[in-house]
């Protein structure tokens, strides 16, 4: 099965699936599992990765008739994976399943130290990475699902507005506006943490 998966092209496999051969979709899963897993791992918590990846492939199967075949299947699957992650967060926010840990003095101290570094200081990126991750998770947890996704794609992953719009299925104008608003919210949250450090002194 695995050898067959790599012999025929994506277009052939899609045609087989659309002709009613359900099992042919396993080739799509085998070929693109790495890509979909890497996207999902970035966006959702570790314990939800497998379920979300599974969901992404099921959605891809159901939406296969809408795949026009003009672009790459991998691009199309990436967009489905991103939207599935977005839906995961929407659901999680609705049921309030997001654990938002409170930040301690250690975090605000780290933030203050990091932003007051002089340009000639070469920062060790691995230095106190834990604090960075915890502050980031705290801030992202305070945002809405949409703001979270747009910040992750544009601010943290460096996707362009056009790319983010394609991945999320939003218009470019919407991505621009939401990206700006989400950045403003992040700025406010970080300013609060920074202010706490000043008061603590």
């Amino acid at each position, binding site marked *: 099965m695995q050898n067959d998966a790599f012999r025929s092209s994506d277009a052939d496999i899609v045609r087989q699936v659309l002709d009613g051969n359900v099992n042919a979709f396993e080739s799509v899963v085998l070929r693109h599992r790495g890509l979909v897993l890497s996207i999902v791992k970035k966006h959702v918590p570790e314990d939800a990765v497998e379920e979300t990846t599974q969901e992404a492939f099921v959605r891809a199967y159901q939406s296969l008739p809408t795949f026009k075949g003009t672009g790459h299947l991998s691009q199309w699957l990436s967009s489905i994976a991103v939207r599935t992650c977005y839906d995961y967060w929407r659901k999680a926010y609705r049921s309030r399943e997001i654990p938002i840990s409170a930040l301690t003095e250690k975090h605000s101290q780290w*933030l203050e130290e*990091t932003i007051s570094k002089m340009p000639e200081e070469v920062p060790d990126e691995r230095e106190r990475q834990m604090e*960075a991750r915890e502050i980031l998770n705290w801030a992202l947890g305070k945002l809405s699902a949409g703001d979270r996704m747009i910040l992750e794609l544009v601010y943290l992953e460096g996707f362009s507005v056009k790319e983010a719009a394609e991945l999320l299925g939003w218009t470019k104008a919407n991505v621009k506006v939401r990206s700006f608003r989400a950045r403003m919210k992040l700025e406010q949250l970080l300013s609060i943490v920074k202010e706490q450090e000043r008061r603590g002194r």
Partner: protein
Amino acid sequence: MRFRVSENEFLKKAFRHAYTSKGGGDTGEGWQSQAMRRIRQIGPLKSAAGFWPAFEGMVWRLAPVSCLLVLVLTLFFVSMEQDVDSDYLGTMAAEVEKPSLVELFDLEG
């Protein structure tokens, strides 16, 4: 508004590094078989080549043309009705204005 904190070069780097290095443990193979089980339960896709999907596609392609045709025909009929009305009014007016011979030569009594 300037992003003084979030656009700080070091902070942004630290955040990006923390975000991208979020490895996540290895995933097993279980989810793949579960996904395929769910897909098999869904069964073959309904869109498999047939008359209706092709027909649906054609309907959507023809929709703008049909709308345009309806618009043109509406305009045509509206203008036609106005022409008929104005013709009728014109005839009526002519009838009213046309003096009869009796009136013209004042032959009465």
